[in-house]
């Protein structure tokens, strides 16, 4: 039995220990904010936080979750500065990749309060966006950094 927390709530899981955290979140916990895009850590749509660090949940089997604290997009405060910047700059187009983008951006800003464009490229290039919202993602990260400085 795996015992862990999701968005501050205690959870237990006794199913297939190889089930990726992504599918546990989506199909079992019914938290569909975290998305499926590729299943092999190439697109970042599945990004959540494990003890505050960004991970790709599509390739994190439940047996590796251990007793971690998992945070998903649903668990981010009602209006995190990153989400506020995303709204002000109108970052999303179709919006599907944006949960992953936001979770990755939040993790970046936790480690780097004032990232350069290069830092942003490095941190964010694992998150694909087919609609092409990259330049506004970059601008929103700078804006959020400015606001939390």
């Amino acid at each position: 039995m795996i015992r862990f927390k999701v968005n501050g709530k205690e959870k237990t899981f006794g199913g297939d220990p190889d089930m990726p955290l992504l599918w546990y979140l989506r199909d079992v916990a019914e938290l569909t904010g975290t998305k499926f895009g590729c299943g092999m850590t190439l697109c970042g749509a599945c990004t959540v936080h494990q003890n505050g660090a960004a991970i790709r949940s599509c390739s994190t089997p439940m047996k590796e979750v251990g007793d971690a604290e998992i945070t998903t997009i649903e668990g981010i405060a009602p209006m995190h500065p990153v989400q506020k910047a995303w709204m002000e700059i109108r970052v999303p187009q179709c919006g599907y990749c944006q949960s992953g983008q936001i979770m990755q951006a939040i993790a970046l800003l936790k480690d780097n309060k004032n990232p350069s464009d290069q830092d942003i490229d490095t941190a964010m290039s694992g998150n694909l966006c087919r609609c092409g919202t990259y330049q506004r993602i970059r601008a929103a990260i700078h804006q959020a950094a400015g606001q939390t400085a």
Partner: protein
Amino acid sequence: MKLIENVSRRDFLEGALVTGAFVLGARLIPGPLWASEGEAAPAPLQPGLWMAIAPDGAVTIVAHRTEMGNGIRTSLPIVLADELGADWTRVKVEQALGDPKYGDQETDTSHSVRDFFDVMRQTGAAGRLMLIRAAAAQWGVPPAECDTSEPHFVLHRRSGRKAGFGELAESAAKQPVPSREELKLKLPSAWRYIGKDNHHLYDLPDMVNGKARYGIDQTVAGMVYAAVERPAVLGASVKSHDDKEALKVAGVKQTVVIDTFKPPHGHQPMGGVAVIADNTWAAFQGRKKLQVEWDNGSHVGYNSEQFRKTATETARKPGQVIRNIGDVEGAFAKSGKILEAEYYTPHLAQAPMEPPVAVVDVRDGKAFCWAPTQDPQQVQKTLADLLGIKPEDVVVHVTLLGGGFGRKSFQDFVAEAAVLSQKLQKPVKVVWSREDDIRFGYYHPCAAMYLKAAVGPDGKPSAWLQRSVFQGSASTSDADVLYPGQDEMDDGWTDVPFNIPNHRAESGQARANVRIGWLRSVTNVFHAFAVQSFTDELAHAAKKDPIQYQLALLGADRKIDFAGTKYQNYGASLDLYPYDTGRLRRVIEIAGEKSGWGKRPMGKGRGMGIAAHRSFLTYAATVVEVEVDNRGQVHIPNVWSAADAGTVVSPDNVRYQFVGAAVFGTSLALFGEITANNGAVQQGNFNDYPIARMNRAPRHVDVHIVESEAPPAGVGEPGVPPFAPALYNAVFAATGKRVRELPLSKTKLV
């Protein structure tokens, strides 16, 4: 002809309506349905079809087109809201079910605003007039003394009396629906929202807080999950299968064979073996353990490299004439200098971030669907045929789409869920993996293009021959089709705008061995690539500046006379939407100005290129600046796009579409290639079908939208076609290397 009743509206608005709400359903004049109208008189106004006002003032507006990042759940409802005099922040948008009563719902071809701008305006204006008349009647004053200068209120100017929309809803509903002649549409100068950057995208908050629900997020009580093992080769069928190991996987319930389609494939399921499970992971795992033997059929011989050779040969020979001006052969015979070039572009996959997925529940003789579809009425037709029920008994809920780009215009993925649900007698969710999306697509065709020009001493062509050979998407409905359709030729081949005295455009034969579909801007992608690359080649051969050269080729501003040529003009009349070369000239000039063309020193490895293209009735010009590093890798520091799309509803959304199109264009210019061998697609995920990441996308895309009161034209697609040729022209400027095939990753620049 039947009255549209309150009850049916209540059904599709899923209980959003309250008694006494401003719903005009009961008072509708019986009339013909939009979709079935030919060139008959316009259907009567039907405000009750599109909106409701509740006693508390909440205005519900129906969005009937598919939201896939195009912003259409905002751009059409806000037009209605503007003419209605509503406060956009008090508007709730409800997605329509698939239903012909809304008219066309097929969201592709960049025509949503073009086709429904007037309908939304008139409907909003009708509602506003009814509210004003109701208030005026209550107050005993002339309606002409009332206005909606304060949003969501009717104000009587002289006395200062006002009443909110909610208060007035019940009495307004009793007003007769006005005729078109009675409507007072706002002058553009009076628009509150249309043409302004003062409103936010309706779905923005939910896209940022994780609450936005896409097709893949849909669940239905009692639902099972399915993963389908499909044949790698089109048309192959299951010879035998062994599910012993698959059934051992925890959560897997059973397997079901899906029959292979009878050609032509249309929107039918490909066929295969479905693994049914109680969660997505178990279905995926069970599928890995299936053993399936296939009967491969005729398409197993398809090899895309071989197709390239054949198509290239075909393009060198005379084909079917699409356009013919003057005497090209005679001019070639007389000319001293001939330039020829061959261009090639491969298959592409749309690869939306949300793979195809659908939930269908077949019960009680009906099919209830939830799907990220670009064409809910096609879902109705396809499922009606497959299940043996009536289209009106197929209830299609259109979810948000995690991208479409044309893939979700084809309903095979919904058909699979329907067939399974009918067999299993329970709701089924079919989830496609990324590999499924890449391998079982409706692909952008491969294209071989041949161009030849005779140039005079001034470098301008006296004759121009262009031949395009590719697999037509009509192969979806006709397995034996040989030539592409008129519409595919009219996407950038029939309508080359240069003023050349001898000009011939042709198409050639090609057979499809994979499913062919539509990828954002369709055949414009390779037609613009060839034409705009060739134009640049001619400019450089003449030692002329590419912008000046192209402007000279365009000649004096004119509306192109297509007499003697069949040209569908994207389904629009040439009276309303002429091909106005002056508008193309203007966007070229703007892109030149904004980019500092010819004025900025380009260092080593840096260069700028331009391309211009009209598609979906919009004029677009793009300048790309590249930097090619010493390893030959191409970086894109800047892009400048100028676009003239006529009247624009949400300028910020339109700019953003062109930004997105530049990134989409980057993927197909630098990386995108789908290949096939032995009938099977060779790519599977983003490792072997890469798309642009943040670090390879253009650093900065600047978009200038021309202010215009011309009728609205397309915005979702027109940014794509000029991008690849502009980039390739920039690479030539930077390196002196002319590349004539996409993608650039296949060529060593250094």
